[in-house]
């Protein structure tokens, strides 16, 4: 590589980003496999020395997860049951070594359709904080992810935090994934579900599916159908045809499209069943 930058403040990082094409690096767990040569090309901006970018803060409005927060940090954090799905996903991102290095912002910026972190964050209504030397803006995660390996990042911008609103901290949640082996595997399909049912009736539900569309998707129609039901009745509300219609899976080396859609529906039923059984709590 030409130059390796490792600033200690966000201000320095943003100054470097201004006007220079840099590869932003955090845990590098996606960057290295994507680099065929033994070195990275061009200039690299390593953001892991910026202390302010790592860690989880809870405030009156909700939770703020610093961009360089690792999956292991998330696993160890004290968070309400609504975040269980995020922790369950954290445990499935690569292996323990990967979880110690890989970061939440890296996962979303890599914009893989199969990113395990994205479905839970969608089901938490997460927003992305983007900063540049000229200011800061916020985008809903679903607007930040624009396609396969594509995001709304502008030149000179970087992700500084993921934010979860207070209201999304309600309910129980569950993440499930399917791969061709038990562990250390890229998802064929993944689901994240969060259900708010304080009095035995569903008041709100958030369902997201990964690896079955260019960008992981919320299933809003199904979410609405779940409202008002008893938790035990939730799995029956999952209709295979409707799920298949909402998704646009591809056929690749990992699985074909029809199997992906069917698997997603089955995983949704199981995740909702687990919530009904209290297994998700």
């Amino acid at each position: 590589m030409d130059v390796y930058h490792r600033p200690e403040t966000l201000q320095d990082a943003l100054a470097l980003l201004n006007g220079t094409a840099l590869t932003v690096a955090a845990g590098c767990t996606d960057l290295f496999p994507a680099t065929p040569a033994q070195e990275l090309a061009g200039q690299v901006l390593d953001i892991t020395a910026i202390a302010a970018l790592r860690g989880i803060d809870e405030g009156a409005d909700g939770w703020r997860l610093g961009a360089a927060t690792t999956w292991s940090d998330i696993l160890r954090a004290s968070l309400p049951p609504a975040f269980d799905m995020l922790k369950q996903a954290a445990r499935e991102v690569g292996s323990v070594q990967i979880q110690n290095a890989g970061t939440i912002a890296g996962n979303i910026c890599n914009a893989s359709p199969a990113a395990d972190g994205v479905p839970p964050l969608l089901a938490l209504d997460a927003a992305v904080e983007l900063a540049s030397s000229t200011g800061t803006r916020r985008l809903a995660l679903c607007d930040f992810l624009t396609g396969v390996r594509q995001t709304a990042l502008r030149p000179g911008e970087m992700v500084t935090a993921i934010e979860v609103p207070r209201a999304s901290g309600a309910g129980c949640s569950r993440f499930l994934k399917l791969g061709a082996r038990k562990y250390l595997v890229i998802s064929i399909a993944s689901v994240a579900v969060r259900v708010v049912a304080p009095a035995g009736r569903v008041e709100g539900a958030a369902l997201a599916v990964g690896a079955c569309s260019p960008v992981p998707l919320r299933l809003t129609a199904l979410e609405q159908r779940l409202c008002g039901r008893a938790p035990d009745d939730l799995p029956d509300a999952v209709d295979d045809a409707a799920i298949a219609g909402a998704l646009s899976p591809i056929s690749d080396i990992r699985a074909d499209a029809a199997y992906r859609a069917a698997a997603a529906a089955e995983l949704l039923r199981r995740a909702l069943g687990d919530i009904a059984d209290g297994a998700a709590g």
Partner: protein
Amino acid sequence: MNKMDSAVPGEQNVSYRQIGKPRTRIDSPGKVFGKTPYAGDYVMPNMLHAKVLRSKLPSARMTRLDVSKARDLPGVACVLTYKDLKIGTVATDIPAQTGFRRRDTDQQILVDEIVRYQGEPIALVAAESVEIAEHALSLIEVELEPVPGVYDVFEAQKPDAPKVFGDDNIVASYKVRKGDVEAGFAAAETIVENTFRTQYIEHAFLEPEVGLGWEDEQGVINIRTSTQAVETFRYIADAIGIPHSKVRIRGALVGGGFGGKCDVTVELYIALLTLKTGRPVRLGYTREDSFYGHGKRHPFIISHKTGFAKDGRITASKIDITSESGPYAFMSPYVLMYATEAGPGPYLVDNVHIDSRSVATNNMYTSAFRGFGATQACIAYEQQMDEAAKVLGMDPIELRRINLLKTGDAIATGFEVQSAVWTEECMDRAWAALGEKPKDEGAIRYGHGIAAYQQGYGRMIWLHDTAEGWVGVEMDGTVVVRSGMTDIGAGQTSSLAQIAGELLGVDMMDITVYNSDSSTTPLAGTSSATRGLYMSGNAVRNAATAVRNRLAARAAQHFGVADSDIDFADSRVFVASDREKSLPFKELIATCASEGIHRSELAIFRAPFGDWIDPETGQGQVHPDYTYGAHAVQVAVDTETGEVTILKSVGAHDVGQCVNIAAVEGQIEGGVAQGHGYALSEELIYKDGCLVTPSLSEYLCPTSMDSPRIECIILESRSGLGPFGAKGIGEPGHTPAASAVANAVADAIGARVHDFPLTPEKIARAVSATRDNG
């Protein structure tokens, strides 16, 4: 148990002091404490770093190759292309033991015009650093013009197919004709036909290929490398145009081979670059290089047509076998021979008709992989047996029991196996170890599967296999063993220490083994073909026995007893009938040394030699002997997602005689885990010759989460041809594991997936097809 009491050759009721015990291997302390240097750990002053430029296309004509910019890059010492080679080809046969070379295995070292597979080497670079070498690769200007290739074994056999190998793309073909197969089918009550397919797979050893070469003061090109075969030094010498005596391969402990380090890879490039530059050269493959840079396991398509009498006895077996060789021969003819020989499995079949062929394509070339074709044969014949049991309405265990070969029966090639055949005992023990099948629960269904097998050990007898070994006793009574055998992580050297130690009464930890040096250790052949212990164990046994006999004669003279009354143990020599009469071993050695009694021996072991089997009938002897056993598996299958969980996995094998029972268990456990991956998740996928799974994130080996504890049931008939009656177990532990998984899955879901690997998707589809039909 009646089979165990049958009259089998071998020593019965013998007891050993070290043999058969679960001993810590002599190579373990160095590995556990991180002291063992592997080939990649060696460096030298003034060393260059090498890289290989590979073709990105699988079938092409090279129209331009300009390396001038790479040569001009500061820090680049050498760039080699086909134009720089004195001899453009290298042999790819089994390292010569007969002295005869088979020219049809020669292949180009670097592309001179035609590219035949993706990854075929085009140029070699040696530079002051890895980074400079990589940069130099990017400066090499290559123009490749795609030419039509062929990527399917059936397309490749059509008359108008592009020719990759010879006139017809047939690399080898064999026949077996035994009895009258048509009469056998006429006599059959039921005929069962199935076709099974297996996939390309990768060895995925932990340590990618690596080596370091240098020229010494005698002008010898030395290569320290990770290999199963130091005897490839002759092919390297021939390929670089210097005498055999001027190339020396020095192995190191190997970080996994599984057949993938039998062929020449980095060592030849290192030799060429060392010869050219006169400087030490190191070449270490990345994982990606390793995926593109060595031959894979053969995909097979095997069709069985089997006739059964009313009582379940097999009346005829007609088998059609096609393997994919890729564009070059490598070991494909031999692998096909193993698959052909093993075709009907460990069953007594009077009427056999087998046609087999290995077909060239522009997909990746294939070569040795643990089991060497017998594994793929097993995947077919054992799934066929379960499918037949289903059609016949018989218990799969009983169907096998009726048909299993017994000791003294003739196998498919007509050869009557002389050693014990304990398949039935192994099958019953493995099956019983599974216990009761759990009750199905929701989407989860449970299945039990069995697979029996026959696997030859040692080389095909027409290769006239030999191994040498040297044993010597030092003045202080410690022992040195010298053997050219490579140690590929299975405890090869440790077993030699244990054998010499048993015979000389010296603890194996007091024995040093020098091995794997093509110039200074007696040549012993490769560590492959389940021949390491068989061949080198016998060579070392012969050498140690000769030394023991001379020492015993001198001790007998001292004690005034017969030679046969002398025994050795715990570094003492004593009179067996009167143990009070004893001497420290080193005192006997001092006496022998002062009297000039020879305290060392170089011995040779010769396997049975023979001729090729009859080319028209396939009848004759192929292997010296065979290992038999069975594997049983319990699975849980999620019928909605198709996921398989292996709950129990039990291998039962007659190993003849354990040398180190802990090492035997290690061999079985490793082979079984590899079999689990073979059945369920591992697959190299080539799309029009291009690899689309070139990393360990797409190529899925089982993790520790995917394999249960593997149970080993070890039987000892003491009837094998190895030392103390041992049979080989390096490959056999692996051979039936994948078939057993497939049979367990089929038992669970009530349907068969005929194409490996059994991915969740294929299983879910098979389940849903049974629902649609039901």
